[in-house]
């Protein structure tokens, strides 16, 4: 199903897990709302305050590099973000994102285009069809390899925990 949302263009490579979700919070048991308040705190302190449900992020290369902390995915989800489009992801971030059902779209062309036209495109609406593998930013259409097989199923179930639960229930 296509989704539409407002886009944040984060014009940087190597946005790491520490700036997405600072290490000092990782061993605190915070509620979802409180976790959302720290989303991207050390990258853009204004982000968490103005992010809204359905937002998407466009970034450069190696998004989510650094530690394996699962909270770096959940924090932006709790802040409302449904998809991150980047030139590439750290593999651990990508893995955590699938297991927690956050769309991570690897599309270097879209990333480069959005970053080049940042002023015009920041906070405009983009259209994403994760199943078809298409993405529209401004007046440009991009395509990417959609998730396939069981990774897509994990997604549909709403994440790995829910996926496992439903699989077990049918056994």
């Amino acid at each position, binding site marked *: 199903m296509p989704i539409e949302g407002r886009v944040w263009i984060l014009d940087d490579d190597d946005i790491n897990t520490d700036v997405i979700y600072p290490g000092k919070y990782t061993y605190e048991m915070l509620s979802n709302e409180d976790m959302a308040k720290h989303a991207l705190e050390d990258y853009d302190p204004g982000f968490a305050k103005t992010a809204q449900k359905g937002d998407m992020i466009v970034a450069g290369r190696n998004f989510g*590099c650094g530690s*394996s902390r*699962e909270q770096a995915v959940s924090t932006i989800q709790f802040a409302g973000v449904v998809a991150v489009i980047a030139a590439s992801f*750290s*593999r*651990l971030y*990508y*893995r*955590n994102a*699938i*297991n927690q059902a956050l769309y991570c779209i690897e599309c270097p062309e879209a990333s480069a285009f959005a970053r080049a036209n940042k002023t015009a495109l920041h906070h405009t609406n983009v259209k994403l069809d994760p199943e078809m593998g298409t993405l529209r930013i401004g007046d440009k259409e991009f395509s990417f390899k959609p*998730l*396939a*097989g*069981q*990774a897509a199923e*994990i997604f549909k179930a709403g994440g*790995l*925990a829910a*996926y*496992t*639960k439903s*699989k*077990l*229930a049918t056994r």
Partner: protein
Amino acid sequence: MGKTMIEKILAKASGRAEVSVGEIVFAKPHMILSHDNSAAILKTFEKMGGKKVWDPERVFIALDHEVPPPDSKKADNHKAIRKFVADNGIKAFYDCGAGICHQVLPEHGHVIPGVVIYGSDSHTTTHGALAAAGIAIGRTETASVWALGETWLRVPESIKIVLEGKLARNVEAKDVILYLIGRLTAEGANYKSIEFHGSAVRGIDVGGRMTLCNMSAEAGCKCAMVPFDERTKKYLAEAGAPKYEALDPDPDAVYEKVYTYDVSTISPMVAKPHNVDNVSPVSELPDLPIDVALLGTCTNGRIEDLEAAARILDGKKIAKGVRLLVYPASRKVLDEAFKRGTARILLNAGAQIGIPACGPCLGAYGGVLATGERAVSTANRNFKGRMGTKEGTEIYLASPVTVAASALAGRIVPAE
């Protein structure tokens, strides 16, 4: 097109004829490892609706991280794990004192070449020493594998590291991997599969290969492997491993990068605080007095490591004020150390010998540092506070011979 080790292993583990880089596959493990964290995993497992693990023959649990339990909460965790093990009929359960999970798993024949080993521990890469893909996964994923018997993996790119030449005297596998991490950096192999090739690797025994693969995790890799050879074969026979089929990389396999190094130029190395890739030769260090010398862990707690240290310590006494902590990696290692007289040498030199387990490596018990103290350790991580105390502490990572020589000198020095 030729295939790398990981491509072949993942094809086999997912029941496919072949797989290529970038594909997502569902791979079944030969074994899945966890340790004291099983207490948390089993709670998630139950929340998922899990009743019995999918295959009690393939679940391996060793208690090692908080052994013997330092407080009642840890003891209660162990109790909950024992009950889970009994309820599920899990056979590969190793209670307190058997040793560190990454040592016990291969030692008891649970690792064979050509398979996937999952582990809820970042140093699961260790098992690549026996030509298996040891892959670390999270706790939620481990619970899911206990329930379903498989999880998804993206087929990673491979990096080929070719090591040629002969190691100089008092230079060990640990120095080689420290040197390599200094070159690769902490993210140099992020999510890639590493293959170790070359004459120097062929000359290193399985124990040293475990050190290489164990510490490769510090360069961010997904797995690190040494192809099967006569040394692997001998180790597997002694460990009583079941039947196996080794999967060699094709000569025309495609690697993302190939690095070649001459190991004969490597001198004793250390990783300085507070990052593992902050590496320099021991000889270039300033004068650094130490409080603690730690010999042990899944990186360097094997009999050959204890023997290498004993060779330096034989007939001598450690410096006044230094605590030399020895944690054999397993009960078998300790047993061997008794038989060979290694334990006697260490004890005479002034070492404190602990129960086979992780010890102060993770800073939870068993000899944590006091404020402002400095340690030289054979472990694999030197992050700030790793040995239990943040304030002013420093951890230097080095080889067993460097740790032994430093314990004698009371400061960090290379062995003569």
